């Protein structure tokens, strides 16, 4: 991934920065220019709660090239305590440990690296609590 593209997402990937609609309170992650709930365009910056629960999940056994060395790995849709949903890996556990409804916490981790000389890509992952 070219570095400007990577750099632009750092506030979300490293710090879970989100935008909260000043009109209706809906949180957008990543931030948007137009609220998907009410259409308003005024936001204040906030952060996702780093706690949430699993809404659904899978275990990836056939992976894209950058993730081939990680199989099998778990991916889930997690709802943070302030209602925002994200796709994220769930790590430090076995596939059979996952269940819908289980509580998780976001942690900062390496996601993958781009070959031998490319950048190392970081971001959030979830762990069971």
């Amino acid at each position: 991934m070219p570095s400007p593209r990577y750099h632009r997402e750092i506030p979300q990937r490293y710090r879970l920065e989100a935008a909260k609609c000043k009109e209706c309170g809906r949180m957008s992650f990543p931030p948007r220019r137009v609220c998907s709930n009410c259409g308003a365009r005024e936001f204040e910056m906030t952060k996702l709660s780093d706690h949430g629960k699993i809404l659904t999940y899978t275990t990836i056994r056939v992976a894209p090239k950058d993730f081939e060395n990680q199989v099998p790995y778990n991916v889930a849709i997690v709802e943070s305590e302030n209602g925002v949903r994200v796709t994220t890996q769930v790590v430090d556990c076995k596939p059979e440990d996952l269940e819908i409804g289980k509580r998780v916490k976001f942690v900062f981790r390496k996601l993958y690296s781009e070959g031998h000389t490319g950048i190392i890509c970081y971001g959030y992952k979830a762990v069971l609590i």
Partner: protein
Amino acid sequence: MREVAVVGCGMTKFGELWSQSLRDIFVEAALKAIDDAHVDHIDSMYVGSMTPGLFIGQEHIGALMADYLGTASIPAVRVESACCSGGMAMRLGYFEIASGHSEIILVGGVEKMTDGADVTYALATAADQEYEVYHGITFPGLYAMIAKAHMYKYGTTRKQLAMVSVKNHHNGAFNPNAQFPGEVTVEQVINATMVADPLTVLDSSPVSDGAACVILASMDAASKLQIPLIKVLGSGAATDTFALHAREDITALKAVQLSAKAAYEMAKVMPTDINFAEVHDCFSIAEICIIEELGFTDKGKGGSFTEQGRTALEGPIPVNPSGGLKSKGHPVGATGVAQIVETVEQLRGAAGKRQVKNARIGLTQNMGGSGASSVVHIFALQK
């Protein structure tokens, strides 16, 4: 708006067509459609294709195909909406005739997926690169998460998922253009190589090359051709949140529901009026969710509806008589047009051993990504 008819159709066999190029397969399907319609010219052309740039490094294929079809000079454009590029091309072509701008046009779809490109990467571009794909999710993974949620919420079983593949392979066994016409059993589906739990390789549509084309005409132009006319009764399209995780209900395909509603209203028909449907079974769970959204059964009942044989070739509402994406193959951009080719053959009573009895009204449903876009068309034999 004017009424529009499908007056010709043609497709290549779907599969690993290593001896043919992207342009070869498109022209093959286009000539079959033109010859089937007995037309001597086309006014313009829409070509559905998801990502020829990533699959074979070729863009600008509207002009390329017009040239190789011997029609350079007509307007020709590629249409893209991920896996429903073909269905969306049909919708644009429909409006070009309906608006009165053109009399006879060609709508095609084509994809060349087996020339050596990184297919997983290319297909993943239909999901959110920054917030889904970045985290290692794949398309089978997205549909697997829909399946898990559907099983949890509605009690859908592993066996019911498998029954979709068993049914579609049974139908595809009668389709000479199918990539994988062989029958499969429930046990084979469940015990096949796991791709993303709970989906195995036999819950998943294959990687394919292929092309499909139809000729559309105004009723005026169509009635001069001495052929059975298939009238377009309705067209509907819709979108949903791009990322799967942003949906209020992960088991709901809202774009499918909305596109169907628009098509039903335009056609002035109800789900119970539909005699058969070609739907976007890219994964087994997708067909279960889609038949719910199309109103063939209640929300949450798609699994048991399938298990009871209601969507079988002999059932009350046959779904995917062609074999669907699962058995027929899924050259992504061609799929939406191939669904229409099957529907035309069924309505003409020309579908051979997979012929649906009393096929008078047929529906096609084509979907992009994890359901962020969907397009539905309804067709009837003109008496």
